């Protein structure tokens, strides 16, 4: 009885835009990955390279290094954020006056443009200008993220924690507040203490939320560019050159379009796999929780 024609008509604008902006570019990038194409090569234009780009990528130490760095960065940031986030969510659950105010402040970093975050942190850590190097100098610690790779790396980690912990916190808050009361009530009746409740009831019930948040954070951390670019430019050396920055540099200043496209495709592949994992595990855990 329902006219499916109207339905398709309604979907049309959305589908057209998404195909145009999402599908077509994807096919295009897939296509270009099979060619050698650099703006400034001897013979202008594209030349067929088959699977060469992909073959090279497997052994490309720069590419693999940037993947590795990105992975390390992700592991560190996400694990710390998860722990902090859960702790803070518990703290925010307290019904004390002014909690709404603190919550609002706490969620501020989520709304600030990543590039502005990078700018702010850069200004804080600039030698000669920022308070961080200045006061660390006073206690004898030489802080210079332009020079020391480790320091730069950890600064990006801390910056990301500052940026995204609120996300975990708020997600947990949302999750916690939508939990059914009955399991808790029965547990209290059974005489369980706080920690037991947390471990055996809260966390399992929150599994969908945890998984969702975990996967989202992992995927977002893997593709970070703006803040890091502004803070360190990928340096010092290649210390903070994560995969997003690496691809950008290959495509734009190096104008190596073919190779850059192949890289993009590989990274997209990982993204698809991770997304699939996310969706299946979340819906799986939802079913478990429902039981």
């Amino acid at each position, binding site marked *: 009885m329902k006219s499916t024609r109207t339905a398709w008509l309604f979907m049309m604008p959305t589908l057209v835009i998404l195909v145009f902006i999402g599908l077509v570019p994807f096919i295009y990038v897939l296509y270009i990955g099979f060619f050698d194409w*650099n703006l400034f090569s001897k013979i202008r234009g594209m030349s067929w390279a088959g699977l060469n780009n992909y073959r090279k990528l497997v052994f490309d130490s720069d590419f693999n290094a940037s993947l590795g760095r990105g992975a390390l960065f992700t592991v560190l940031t996400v694990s710390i954020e998860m722990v902090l986030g859960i702790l803070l969510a518990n703290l925010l659950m307290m019904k004390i006056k002014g909690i709404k105010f603190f919550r609002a402040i706490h969620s501020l970093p989520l709304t600030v443009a990543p590039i502005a975050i990078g700018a702010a942190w850069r200004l804080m850590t600039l030698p000669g200008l920022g308070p961080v190097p200045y006061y660390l100098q006073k206690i004898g610690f030489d802080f210079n993220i332009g020079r020391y790779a480790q320091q730069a790396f950890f600064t990006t980690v801390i910056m990301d924690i500052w940026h995204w912990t609120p996300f975990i916190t708020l997600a947990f808050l949302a999750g916690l507040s939508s939990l059914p009361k009955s399991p808790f009530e029965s547990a209290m009746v059974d005489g369980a203490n706080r920690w037991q409740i947390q471990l055996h009831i809260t966390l399992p019930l929150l599994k969908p939320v945890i998984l969702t948040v975990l996967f989202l954070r992992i995927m977002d951390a893997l593709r970070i560019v703006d803040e890091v670019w502004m803070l360190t430019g990928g340096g010092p050396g290649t210390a903070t050159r994560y995969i997003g920055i690496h691809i950008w540099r*290959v495509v734009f200043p190096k104008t190596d379009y073919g190779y850059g496209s192949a890289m993009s495709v590989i990274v997209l592949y990982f993204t698809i796999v991770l997304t699939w994992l996310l969706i299946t595990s979340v819906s799986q855990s939802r079913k478990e929780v429902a039981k």
Partner: protein
Amino acid sequence: MKKLLLWIVVLMLTVSVVATFSLVGCKAVPEAVEAEKPVVEEAPAEEEEVAGSWWAQAAAPYKDVTIKGISESTPPSKYMQEVLAKSFMEETGINVEFEVTSWDEMYDKEIKDMEVGTGIYDFVYIEQDIIFSYLHNEYLLDMTNFMNENPELVFDDLDMDDFTSFINDFKDDEGHVYGLPFEAFLKICLYRKDLFENKEIQDAFKGEYGWDLRPAVTFDEYGQIAKFFTEWGKDNDMELWGTTVQAASHPSSFYEIFETILPPAGVYNWGINMENWKATSADGGAMDSDKAKEALAFWVSMLDYAPPEATSSTWDEVAASFAAGRAAQGWVYGENAAWIATNAEKSVVVGNVGVARPPLMEGVLEEAEAGEGYIGYYDGGALGIPHCSKNPEAAMLFIQWVCRKDFQGEFAKAGSRIVRTSTFDDPIVLAMDKEVDGYYSMFKNEGYLYKGAPPFPFHATIREVIYTYTIQAITGEMTASEALDAAAKATNEELVKLGYGK
């Protein structure tokens, strides 16, 4: 209520659609040529009656046209934006929107515009090193042909022969010109005269190293001086270090290494053999030669004697560091020499700046004098017109305006750049020469010892490949030796991929 909501939404939709399409392709805000108080005087008004009327006449058909250009935010470009563009607008009625931005952005925007053919810019900054790429990709308008076809647009006193040999970099094989130079300078060494001529310092130095303090001639001497001053600064509680180093993890560090440090080691053209397009010494290149490694290692070691901001310094910051009195010597671009030596608003070392040749390894000076090599970087840029420009005529007029002989003196004063041989004898320049410790004389007499970047159409790509490794040498992730080995190998591979060599 719901109707109201509907109308509001429709209204906003209409407004934004209209706004969007009316803004596509045009500028929403009046042009951005408002300037801070210019530090130099206005361009001279002599011969205004005769020259002025030619310009106004030639520009008459293009009055009220707006031309748009882009350049790097350096002193000469800022002078063009703040002074010359304004006087041009007054004289001709052609609007000039001169965008001055960072080096990375400028290239990105320029190349995109010309590759895509969007015609956003009517004149672009062509640095001496990228002209080869632009010529290869046919991005630019052939000015020689253009001027032949439009004689009414050619200023009779343009005097192409008066340009220094620098203009040859902007010509193709047939001698057609694709850009008119507006800036050229050498990367030399600056040093603090006040410190070098200080008796106490001189005695201390002699005592420690056994020779009289003077600007360094070899790498070893440079290193000793750097070490000395860094210690001196520490002992006397001064914010003083021995040298600047352009060591940001940014392409700028590449340029200091390959155009200013390696040539003095006898490694030319980035160590790439231009016959077989190889960079490894096993195949006839020199990028990973012992001399190159020695020079790079030396340069990296200078970081110990440089102020902390060195690893965040690109060209501008190096100049700023020196101007803030934080370094006793430094490799600094000549375009900064003038303001560092004379502008009290921006520099605390006014009157104390000395100019010297960069330190060299043995035998390199002789090679350069014989024309077989070079000792450093002859940098500069020209203004060219993209092929896709919509207003080439008006752009051509503006570019010639900037090249006017009578403007060159003041221009040189503002940006310490010289592109015309006649400018060397301009009274303003001669007067300035003393204040800049003879930089202009050095430029005139020794300019031939320096060279611009090698004629590589693949300049940007290979630079990206190489600098990925050299920045790792800066942080110590790789030694200088490892970095150059890796860079040479990667360069070989990339060149083959680009179609050069086998």
